[in-house]
């Protein structure tokens, strides 16, 4: 077993010496912060709830008086400041003297369809903001009009809490941080195997008391260890940031198994093709296919991981075991094919 661990140690040492693993960690940090900034920032920019929380009362809408005040009521309920004006030209004057940001004219009836004229500022940024904020009251008004015609729309009284950041954290951020290291460790296995072949150092390595399977296994183990260290660090960091994560043990195990699967399949590709260019290409194709197929079969590791993290009542160790079985099949296949590397 000693030569086996010598190879593992050498692999890890070379990664640490090259310092390029730092790049990989930086990328993960970058993607995590960037995607959360991007997604949450953008969604809050396009999410009327958030806009209302931060500056809803500051949005003033001028409304031309009419007998039907439903729309004005709905807007006030939403938290928008509504100011009434007797005529359109007075409302327009208020707009240009910056008292209101938009103007809504009196609803008119045209062949059973209610028409509203909405006047917005020409500046894109402000007009799209206003359109987002008044979308909800307009929809409620539309439902009210439907009700007047005797059409009942169900489930309109649902409220709940904005779920975007919850969905983002558990279905994107945590799976990304747990599986990105696995994706990298697969790439590393390809690199490390094909480098031995292309530099013609493989024969030398095998003249030591180490079998070909032992050598490949050691390389896979080294990349899985790296992946495990990163995942553990991310989990600790996430929990320090106050994100509740259930089933951490299972999650780590799942992350390791997935890293094993990617590394083993990457090694399989490298054994068959023996050069980096094609192996990396096939490996990235395999990753995509794997993701697609597992979704098709309804056993996506991403979903399994999100469910473990939120503490889903119907997800447990068995969902992890499925992947372990798959890993052992793959590894068995690899041990059978590994001799092709010597040919």
């Amino acid at each position, binding site marked *: 077993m000693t030569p086996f661990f010598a190879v593992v140690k050498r692999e890890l040492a070379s990664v640490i010496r090259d310092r390029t693993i730092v790049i990989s960690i930086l990328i993960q940090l970058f993607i995590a912060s960037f995607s959360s900034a991007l997604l949450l920032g953008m969604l809050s920019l396009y999410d009327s709830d958030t806009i209302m929380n931060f500056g809803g009362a500051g949005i003033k809408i001028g409304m031309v008086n009419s007998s039907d005040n439903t729309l004005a009521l709905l807007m006030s309920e939403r938290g928008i400041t509504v100011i009434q004006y007797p005529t359109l030209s007075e409302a327009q004057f208020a707009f*240009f003297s910056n008292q209101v940001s938009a103007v809504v004219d009196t609803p008119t009836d045209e062949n059973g369809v209610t028409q509203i004229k909405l*006047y917005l500022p020409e500046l894109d940024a402000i007009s799209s903001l206003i359109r*987002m904020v008044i979308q909800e009251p307009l929809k409620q008004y539309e439902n009210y009009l439907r009700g007047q015609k005797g059409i009942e729309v169900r489930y309109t009284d649902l409220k709940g809490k904005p779920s975007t950041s919850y969905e983002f954290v558990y279905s994107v951020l945590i799976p990304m941080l747990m599986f990105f290291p696995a994706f990298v460790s697969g790439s590393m296995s390809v690199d490390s195997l094909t480098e031995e072949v292309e530099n013609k150092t493989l024969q030398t390595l095998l003249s030591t008391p180490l079998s070909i399977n032992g050598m490949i296994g050691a390389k896979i183990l080294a990349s899985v260890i790296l992946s495990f260290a990163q995942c553990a660090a991310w989990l600790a960091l996430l929990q320090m940031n106050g994100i509740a994560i259930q089933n951490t043990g299972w999650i780590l195990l799942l992350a390791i198994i997935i890293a094993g699967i990617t590394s083993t399949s990457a090694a399989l590709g490298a054994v068959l093709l023996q050069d980096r260019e094609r192996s990396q290409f096939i490996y990235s194709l395999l990753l995509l296919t794997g993701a697609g197929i597992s979704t098709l079969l309804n056993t996506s590791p991403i979903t399994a991981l999100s469910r473990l993290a939120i503490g889903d009542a119907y997800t447990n160790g068995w969902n992890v075991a499925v992947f372990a079985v798959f890993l052992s099949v793959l590894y068995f296949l690899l041990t059978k094919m590994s001799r092709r590397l010597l040919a």
Partner: protein
Amino acid sequence: MNQILVIAWREVTRLRKRFGGGASPLAVIALLVILGLSAYYLRSTVSLGSGLYRIGVFGDVPAISDSRFSVMDVDVEQGQALLEQKSIDVFINGSQVFAREDDKSQFAVRALKQYMEKQELIRVGNSFAGADAFPLRVAINYFGEDQAAEQAEAGAPLSVAKPEEVIIPSLTPPPAPFTQVLVALLYIMPITFISIFFTSSFMDEKMNRRLTILLSAPVTPFQIIFGKMLPYAIFALASTALIAGLTKTNILLALAIFAPTTLFIFAIYLMVPLFYRTFKDTTFIAMLVTTLTTAYLVFPAMFTNVNDLAYISPLALAVKMYRNEPFGWREYLFPSLPMAAIFGLAMFAGTRLLNEEFLMGYKPLTRKLSDAIYLMMAHSKPYIAVPLWSLITIPAVYMTQIVFLAFATNLPVGLILGFTLFASALVEEVVKTVGIVALAEHGVIKAWREIIGLSFLSALGFLIGEKLLLLVSISVVSQAQVSGALFGAGLLLFIPLIAHFVFSTIITVLRTKLRFPYWLALGIGTVVHFIYNVYVLRGGM
């Protein structure tokens, strides 16, 4: 030209050989399967939160087919019990919805609300006449900015700036560029893939030492790089044309938009084979490059029509193209010129670095970078090379600063300006001093006089480049005053020149004469620069 074509043809042959025979049918089939699957995969995971919510259903409830929800049929008692046990998040009994008070359940309710709203619209739309199902029309008009105000005061009839747009609120979501950005991103993916092949081709030649032979042949490094790039570039442009054709948009316009982007991506991938030492390096560097370029291209485009800064990404132009909105020459050149300039810079660097000694050496990355800069400068006199370097790296500085600005908008408001000012001071100082430091470390310059003189020239080159760029960008980015602050919009040229000169001199002298570590010297210079920037912004000058 002939030689370029020969090399290009040889590259095509090499690729055919490599992917011919055993791997090719496998690759093609795999590729096809993948394209189909990933399309399917992407479609079903467009919504966030796949599989997060569990819902129990009883009675007449519309079918819930959304990847976020796992639905199970339960009876009333069972449903209530499961809800109590927190095994399910929501229980729907006919048109009644039951939930718990905790967050998880409330999130599920909101997600359900969004979904049900759409389903009910479909139901209502199918079962009732149009005017009854959708009884509201909103006509959107825009008030013009200038003359309209005067007219309003004069009591004239309403004047509107754009033609009226009529919407049905429940069917028309507020404008968001997401979908078009995703379509625009489709163009980037094949270009990235193809440029990865370009990279590995170089690596392959380097491994086999064939590059060495090629270098001793009567061809210039430029011809080698250009020749090897040519087939891939044609391939990338063809894929752009193909996507444009498939998505039924103007092919020529798409090519015009994405040609500079293609060059830019190739330019960056050209750096990978020049700098890598082991295979793992390549993987990590390529990953970094992919992440950064994608972020740089996608992030600003999200703000199309929200902020003019969006135009730093050509994807913003593509979004406009898909919305059939016109854009002018200035909007086109704003993202394209810096990208083309970076391509030029990368080609120049490539021709200088393509020699055996540089390619084969194993050194720390920072050392390799310093060597690279030295090699780029060594062929001409320092007093020409240094200011020229400061001048031509401006587009790269500019792009980095814009990325910082985009990042900074996510920070707390109080920190945005400080962070951006500090980061951009840092980038500027790196660019201005790194050449001089590299030259000094290779012993080309030694005397005080030379170091101070070169610091001055570097500051001068930088300032000229900066002002040229300012001229272009100010005309496009009218709203972004911050960019004006970054590039020092002050009309007085003399004071900024002196300031830049002083900062560079501090760093170069600390490094070369007082033997400070570079990072420390850089830090000190940057802090001084930052204080100056803050002072200028406060209106001190």
